[in-house]
């Protein structure tokens, strides 16, 4: 099974070949800071109530679709990558493969949910 070692190790932790995901965690973190500030400002400082009318009008505009999709993609990536880091630090058995697979599925499902919520929305 030695020939499998390199393949398996790639999925084991940031200590092995995880430097790219480590760097992307920093990059997506900074991006999220900017996106979150925009999101926070809109929700709390514009004075508009958070009701169907206002949220729907915003979600129907193409520019906000781009903003919201970018936001949710970065947030899901950053969050699930963070969960992976926790799994790598605390799960040291075969369950690691299970939990990583589980959160891959959860991540993809939420990405699909975001896409079908945002993209076809007309208001």
């Amino acid at each position, binding site marked *: 099974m030695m020939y499998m070692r390199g393949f398996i190790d790639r999925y084991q932790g940031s200590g092995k070949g995880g430097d790219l995901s480590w760097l992307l965690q920093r990059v997506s973190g900074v991006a999220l800071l900017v996106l979150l500030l925009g999101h926070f400002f809109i929700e709390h400082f514009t004075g508009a109530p958070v009701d169907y009318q206002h949220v729907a009008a915003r*979600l129907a505009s193409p520019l906000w679709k781009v903003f919201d999709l970018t936001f949710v993609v970065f947030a899901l990536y950053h*969050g699930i990558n963070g*969960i992976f880091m926790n799994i790598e630090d605390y799960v040291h058995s075969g369950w690691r493969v299970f939990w990583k697979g589980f959160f891959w599925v959860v991540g993809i499902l939420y990405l699909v949910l975001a896409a079908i919520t945002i993209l076809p929305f007309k208001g």
Partner: protein
Amino acid sequence: MDWYRGRPHHIQYKWHEGFIAWVFHRITGLLLILYLFLHEWVISTLQNPAGFQKAMAALENPVFKLLEVGLWLVASYHAINGLRVILVNFAGAAERENYQGNVWIFWVIFAIVFVAGAIPMLMQV
């Protein structure tokens, strides 16, 4: 699956400033991803206006307003400590002479940002 046995992954933790900041970073990170899942699920009810209004009406409850301030606490902590981590990683903030200091400077900045954001949120209640 015993190939990992004997690896020194049982780290001796030391309760210094940076470690405590790191523990909170983990906890707030997990809370935020949990919130993201719930938030996205609520927003997906937009396809059904009546369902969305019902969800939003529930969120008008003062309990949720307080939880919202809690969310701001968690998010601002994670964001600002994340910036500190980047300084530690890339700008030499991990050097011995300024490491403990940067954690305390971070707590002060975090407190200011949190209060500055929480005031307008609470004024809406």
